[in-house]
């Protein structure tokens, strides 16, 4: 068993409350830093994709997992970020300037989307964001003067502090650094007042308002930060794929992002990253599985989407807290060994809340 002996309130504010957290995260970071030395090029490339998805998943987690605003259109923000970044690079801006600007542009558009979203929650918001992403896809396709339309657009080469972004190792480290910055910034936000306000927004808007949370402002913050982070992920994504087409940022990508945060566990940053890792394993696993299945099943179109959907449904049914929830249970088992009780994680029924306020 582990006991917490805390003597100062600052201890509760730490990013890593326990020494074991620090060790675990440090070890993970070391592994990530050492990966390019051991991994072959192909796997390193795949891992870079996961880092980029990680940034986007953190962005979506902030909006959907913490503020409780479900978005089915986050691919649009990746698209906006990717195109903005590529166009700015084309215009001669350096990487170090164009990537944050791409994030800002996506964030500003996210804030605009947040305004109609102030009056919508749940399913309605999901549909509105879905519509938004389809509109963005079409605008990118038709605005040929800026985006070269459906013909596609070459992502210009770029370098950061002398490192060529075309080189997979340099790019890997750049993406890793940005992911770390995004994770730390988001974690900081979540352990202070604004982060709590987002959680308040998710659980009860009336109470949040009664305690002084400015709902329109808080939602605008959630939308713009989320869109901004996702836009930065889009900028990185652009370098990784090298060639931009409107179709790269379609609904399937949005669904994949949403799946990452749901499977990982809504309401935790670690969950977002776990979800990304899970999908990173699932995707190639399905590709390998195809070879071993009878051709009628293995070759069927949509097998991958079917399995994605199946996994999502199974998670929602059996582990609504996602992989992170499972991890918490395993951790609690060892923390409290041999006194672990299953009931720890069983919640008493939710009492009726007054529906009339919503």
């Amino acid at each position: 068993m582990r006991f917490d002996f805390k003597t100062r309130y600052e201890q509760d504010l730490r990013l890593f409350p326990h020494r074991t957290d620090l060790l675990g995260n440090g070890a993970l970071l070391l592994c990530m830093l050492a990966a390019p030395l051991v991994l072959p090029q192909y796997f390193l490339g795949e891992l870079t994709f996961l880092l980029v998805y990680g940034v986007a998943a953190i962005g979506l987690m902030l909006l959907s997992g913490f503020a409780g605003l479900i978005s089915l259109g986050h691919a649009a923000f990746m698209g906006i970020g990717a195109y903005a970044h590529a166009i700015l690079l084309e215009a001669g801006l350096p990487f170090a300037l164009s990537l944050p600007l791409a994030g800002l542009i996506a964030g500003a558009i996210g804030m605009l989307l947040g305004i109609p979203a102030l009056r919508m929650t749940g399913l309605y918001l999901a549909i509105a964001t879905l519509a938004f992403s389809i509109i963005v896809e079409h605008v990118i396709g038709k605005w040929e003067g800026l985006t070269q339309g459906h013909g596609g657009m070459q992502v210009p080469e770029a370098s950061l502090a002398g490192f060529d972004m075309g080189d997979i190792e340099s790019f890997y480290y750049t993406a890793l650094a940005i992911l770390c910055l995004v994770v730390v910034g988001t974690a900081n936000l979540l352990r202070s007042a604004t982060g709590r306000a987002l959680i308040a927004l998710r659980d009860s808007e009336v109470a949040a308002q009664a305690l002084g949370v400015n709902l329109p402002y808080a939602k605008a913050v959630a939308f713009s930060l989320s869109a901004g982070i996702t836009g930065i992920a889009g900028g990185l994504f652009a370098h990784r794929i090298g060639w931009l087409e409107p179709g790269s940022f379609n609904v399937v990508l949005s669904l994949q992002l949403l799946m990452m945060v749901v499977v990982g566990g809504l309401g935790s940053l670690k969950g977002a990253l776990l979800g990304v890792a899970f999908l990173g394993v699932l995707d190639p696993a399905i590709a390998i599985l195809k070879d071993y299945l009878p051709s009628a099943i293995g070759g069927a179109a949509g097998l991958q989407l079917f399995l994605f959907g199946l996994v999502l449904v199974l998670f929602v049914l059996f582990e609504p807290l996602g992989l992170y929830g499972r991890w918490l249970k395993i951790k609690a088992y060892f923390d409290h060994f041999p006194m672990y009780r299953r009931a720890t994680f069983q919640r008493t029924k939710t009492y009726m809340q007054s529906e009339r306020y919503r």
Partner: protein
Amino acid sequence: MSLLAVENLAIRFGGVRAVDGVSFAVEPGQVYTIIGPNGAGKTTVFNLISRLFDSDNGTVTFDGRDITRERPHRIVRHGIARTFQNLELFDHATVLQNLLLGRHRHRTVKLLDEILFLPRVTRSEVAHREKAEEVIEFLELEAHRDSPVASLPYGVRKVVELGRALCAEPKLLLLDEPASGLNPEETENLAFWIDDMRSDLGLTILMVEHDLTLVNEVSEQVLVMNQGQALAEGSPAEVQKDPAVIAAYLGTDE
């Protein structure tokens, strides 16, 4: 001067006059209770004061300021905190996080400071934590500090919601049926706390309550409402003798 003055307040939902020209005044340091049969409009009065609804008519004055058309999230900054009849807690957050959200009106740091977690953020967080701990001690919530609200029994949740309102350090506390769903022992605790909040914390309390034992014990002034209108006002003993009140609760002989 009264701390809270409600003048001729009215709202209608479709054809229903939920609140129909109610006036009353709460003096500083008072425990003022609104009672009345179901559907009398008691909670609606609360929702009008805390600006969940726009009133059709009338004014609400708090501490000398007209707050009839104040924006809802600014009400708590004037010094009015409230609880809800059916609990509006942040279920998936811990008790401590709920209480710290009660401190939201006292927030001083900026968004960018928070993202960078500058030392001033740490300082303000620790200051808020100290205030929250005072409330935890006052309401004896120590054992539940880190539990998620969703895992707590109803009685404790009620106390957490009271604590969250106290964390805002209000001048006026609106309690919407604080004793509903509590057992006699918990209700007795609540009576002590209400007394302490008034005498030690200097709070003024406006509450809606059905439990007349509690009302008799803690309240000085009672307003009886029926069908959106004020029926009687006075001390608990006075209003319970009022023939109009008895008629509203029990019906008449005719």
